[in-house]
């Protein structure tokens, strides 16, 4: 299997605050990798550097293929309220001819089970459905890599399970390479083929674990599987060890502000 994403000695500092300190890992084609770490450990910065939203201070990110897509946590803001659901899915496809755009959007909406909602406005849908629109939009773009930033952190538990299974299904059906950033240990074990465990700030790689579970997973049986439980405890222990370092709240807030203003100026 070839590598889809290669990250080498990636580091980023805001002023004198080091958010990530030298990360090296790869994501193979068709793989689903979860990055898990304590809150505020630099996961967002990692995602922003990989997606090219900010230029890393050092290191290299190389992606095989030209484009990637991101599904953000905040679906309400990530979707455009003035476009219909279909318009939102077509949003990244403006360079394609109209007819092809149509077909691709309809197809992607079918994949996530929203074929009937194409003409609605995103805000007329429930939160879980809105996040499915965002997933459809990302899939319609046919990305070499699908990045997801805490994608299911803003929906209720029931919807969350549904969306996790939806993600597992579509990525299997379409052989999508996915990198999910999350702080939820259970989710990382349930979704991942592999788990990258990060320590607190600055984010460093603590462990790179294969998930010894079958590709077919189920919310009830998988979560009670011995392998699942064992791996979950292992990740939890790793995070505790790595997370002992206390977080400098002030520095972190300052860094967060800076990272926001940085994006605004790069894309305008």
């Amino acid at each position, binding site marked *: 299997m070839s590598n889809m994403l290669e990250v080498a000695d990636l580091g980023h500092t805001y002023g004198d605050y080091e958010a990530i300190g030298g990360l090296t890992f790869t994501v193979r084609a068709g793989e689903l990798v979860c990055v898990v770490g304590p809150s505020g450990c630099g996961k967002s910065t990692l995602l922003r550097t990989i*997606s090219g*939203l900010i230029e890393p201070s050092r290191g290299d990110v190389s992606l095989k293929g030209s*484009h990637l897509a991101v599904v953000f946590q905040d679906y309400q803001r990530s979707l*455009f309220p*003035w476009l219909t659901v279909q318009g939102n899915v077509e*949003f990244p496809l403006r360079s394609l001819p109209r007819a092809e755009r149509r077909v691709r959007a309809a197809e992607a909406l079918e994949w996530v089970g929203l074929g009937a909602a194409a003409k609605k406005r995103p*805000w007329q849908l429930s939160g879980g459905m809105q996040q499915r629109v965002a997933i459809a939009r990302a899939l319609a773009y046919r990305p070499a890599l699908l990045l997801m930033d805490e994608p299911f952190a803003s929906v209720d538990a029931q919807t969350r399970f549904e969306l996790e299974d939806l993600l597992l299904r579509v990525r299997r059906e379409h052989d999508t390479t996915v990198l999910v950033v999350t702080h939820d240990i259970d989710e990382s074990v349930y979704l991942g083929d592999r788990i990258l465990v990060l320590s607190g700030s600055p984010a460093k790689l603590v462990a790179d674990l294969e998930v010894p579970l079958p590709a077919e997973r189920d919310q009830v049986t998988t979560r009670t599987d011995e392998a699942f439980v064992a791996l979950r405890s292992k990740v939890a222990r790793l995070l505790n060890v790595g997370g002992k370092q206390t977080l400098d709240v002030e520095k972190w807030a300052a860094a967060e502000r800076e990272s926001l203003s940085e*994006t605004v100026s790069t*894309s*305008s």
Partner: protein
Amino acid sequence: MNKFLQRWTVFAGLVVVWQVAGMLAEDPFFPPPSDILTAAWEWWVLEPENVTGHILPSIGRLLSGWAIAAVIGISLGLLLGRSDRAMEYAGPLLVFMRSIPPPALVPVFLLLFRGGTSMQLATIVFGVIWPVLLNTVDGARSVDVTKVDTSAVFRIPRHQWILGVVLPAASPKIFAGLRVSLSLSLVLMVISELVGTDNGIGSQLMVAQREFDYTRMWAGIVLLGVLGYGLNTVLLAVERRALAWQPRSRDEQHA
């Protein structure tokens, strides 16, 4: 329907009170509504050349001045609003310009444009561009980070970024600015016609005053009120259509 009745009953009641009081008082400064209506009828219906020669040119100048200001204000506002650097350079200047009473510049425009329509347009444009411009800047700045990021990740072309993201995101604020500007346009239209022209509603008001024809003066004032009400109503209807995508109420929206 009940609300409609409520609204217009009081309005009609006030007109009746005015009518009775006006007839009783026989004060030349405050003629009753029936006299004003008669004056308006004689002035504009029986002499339609007053409509084509005064009212229509006035409306034409008002609308074209407003449209020019809207085009310049929105395009400049979108550019300035998406660049913090540009706003730092231009911000204080804009705040100062906005505070200048536009009529004060009428003398300058009179000399620069040698009177006539271009001077009136300059006055209107200069006077009404600020609400559009500053509101557009404000709206363009309000595009949230997630939308900025989403657009950057999908590498959409620049024109799609500006027309497809920044413009719609700013449009509620832009419309608010356009409404303020439209009512200001009416003011500046009148001001620009009080000096340096012999046609238009404003100049007719002046003539009526000079001839001590207070009934016609009142007719002119009422006409301006009706005009302002009508223009605002039309713009509101357009706005409602253009912004139909906005989540209308909280319970319609699933959080």
